[in-house]
């Protein structure tokens, strides 16, 4: 098991947010980031990319974040890969529902691009204990 986080699969359908997120993760955080614009694309790429953490937008057209998460888990080899949801939904009942799925954490939008990477790193480290 690696001791530092380097490879992140970032799934976000909104191109603008994706661009900001990529800058925050790759330029500010120095991670290797694989971008996906839909849940399906993520499912297609995950086996080749072998991410150490998956950052998943919840509200997406087609298969949404929750369905994508469940499909990823069904693939079998990602039990130890933390999945972090990103959502603009802030209703407590939504958040509680997400947490019950077994995800690592939730990052709410809008996020601060300068501290996003630190946040991700913290979550990943907590998952390693």
């Amino acid at each position, binding site marked *: 098991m690696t001791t530092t986080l380097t490879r992140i699969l970032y799934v976000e359908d*909104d191109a*603008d*947010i994706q*661009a*900001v*997120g990529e*800058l*925050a993760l790759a*330029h*500010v955080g120095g991670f290797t980031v694989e971008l996906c614009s839909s849940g399906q694309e993520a499912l297609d790429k995950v086996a080749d990319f072998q991410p150490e953490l998956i950052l998943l937008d919840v*509200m997406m057209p087609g298969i949404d974040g929750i369905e994508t998460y469940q499909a990823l888990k069904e693939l079998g080899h990602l039990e130890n890969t933390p999945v972090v949801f990103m959502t*603009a*939904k*802030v*209703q*407590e*009942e939504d958040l509680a529902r997400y947490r019950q799925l077994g995800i690592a954490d939730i990052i709410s*939008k*809008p*996020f*601060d*691009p*300068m501290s996003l990477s630190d946040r991700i790193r913290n979550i990943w480290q907590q998952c390693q204990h």
Partner: protein
Amino acid sequence: MLLIHSLRGRLALVILMSSLLTLTTVLLLAYQSLVRDLEAELSRQQAFETRQLSNQIEAELTLRLFALENLARELSDGYRLVDPQNMERALTNRSRLEALFSSAIIVLDSEANAIAENIHVPGRLGTNYADRPHFRRLLRSNAPVISQPIIGRATGLPLISFLHPILGNEGQLLGIVGGTVDLSETSVISAASLETMERLGLQILDADNFYYVQGNPDQQGLSITELPDPGLNPLIDRALQGISTGTVTMPDGSRQLYATAVIPTLNWIILKANPVTEILAPARASFQRFLALSIGICLVLASFGYWAVRHSMTPLSRLTRRIQKMARDPELSEPLPVSGIEEIRDLTLAFNSLTDERNRLSRLKEEFVSTVSHELRTPLTALNGALGLLNSGVAGEMPDKVQELVKLSHRNAERLQTLIQDLLDFNKLQAGRMEFNIQRCEVEPILQASVERNRMMAQHYQVRLGLTIDENIEVEVDAGRLQQIVDNYLTNAIKHAPARSRVTVSARRDGPNLLITVSDQGEGVPEHFVSELFTRFSQAEVGTTRAIKGTGLGLAICKEIAEHMAGQVGYHNENGAHFWVQFPAVMDQ
């Protein structure tokens, strides 16, 4: 008095008043009619009784004259009077005659000289009575005569004389037989009649002789006195004037109902009078009984009315209490139970449909705010993120002017984000959906984090930030929410503080509480606005030197959050604005 301000009190009063009014009117009319009928009936009865008495007396008089007529026949042989011996015999041992003429039976010759008597009275025999008016009448007419009551010449007693002529076969006057009745002992009126007279208020007036004959309970029989002078007794005046029935007011103020009947033979007037109050006493008594009973019934009716209205109004009071409760607690949205009278059921149904509509609107508002804010946050995420990255120089160095404009854009994008957050928080608080993760925590790290987070903003506004903590106190709060309150106070203070002034966050123990105060050196909140400070959508109008930024929800949110964590918020002005929040401090064991 409070009673008449309520519907039930008023209705009970209306029932009571209308019942009493109706009752009084009916009773008064009934009483008047009863009095009229009673007076008329009694008047008829009085007239009957007086007539009966007069007939009775008339019969007694006729009986005596008839007895004298029979005696007169025995005292002559058709040509002359019988001899003295036979006359003596005819007068003695005649118990029937003695009973009829208690005082005396005398026989007189045709010149009215007394020649025989049944009871010896010294000096009577030989006396001539021709000067007496009734003898004169008989001598003139040769017909039977009954005298007016007179005082007997020899006896000195009140007497009535009956005279019958003794006529010969050819109608010539042979003599006179006379009988006398002492009114004070025996009477033409029987003893039973006297008692009846007394009881019934009967009097006999002798109109010709102005004698006033009335039953006297102290003496046996009748007494005769002079009639009072006119004007002294209105009752006797009326009787003498010949007014046979009516009412008269006596000098003592009492009213008398009376009736009279005349005995023509004697020119006597039978007078019966009864006080009106005595006649009306039974009517008055039954009227009073009826009045008492009716008032009782009225009170029962009014109580029943009060009870019925109160019973009907109870659901209304319940409804009112429930509505007041719902006004205080927006979370309470259960429909009200539909019960009570029809109008109240309708009102409840109408109110329930209003509640349903309110709930529907409330849900709609929540959904709307949630959806809109979500939709707003998506582009804001990209905008804020991009500006943040630009600002931090990740994308490379920018010319100063560009840098300045990017900062401006970033600041405003963040402001927009705060506004949306405020709206969402407020919506959550209103809907009771904000979650609180209350834990025991130290206050120092929370305040330090807040100060650090706002240092950039303070620099921008050229305000110095300070933090003073007396001791590291522990409180049981949701750390994130406490930070939210302090952040809100801090950003407000930084925005309103004059340039180059100081904003201080301080924490100290205040009795059992932890008191956190954020103080600035600005002008403070205008006096008239202080009371509105923590209410929603309120913003003070201040000078134009620094624009007000915010939704007007920030402080209202702080207040609600603090109260959810058993805290209190407040403000005071002392060389600047001081916003404070306090929570019960955790006591060390």
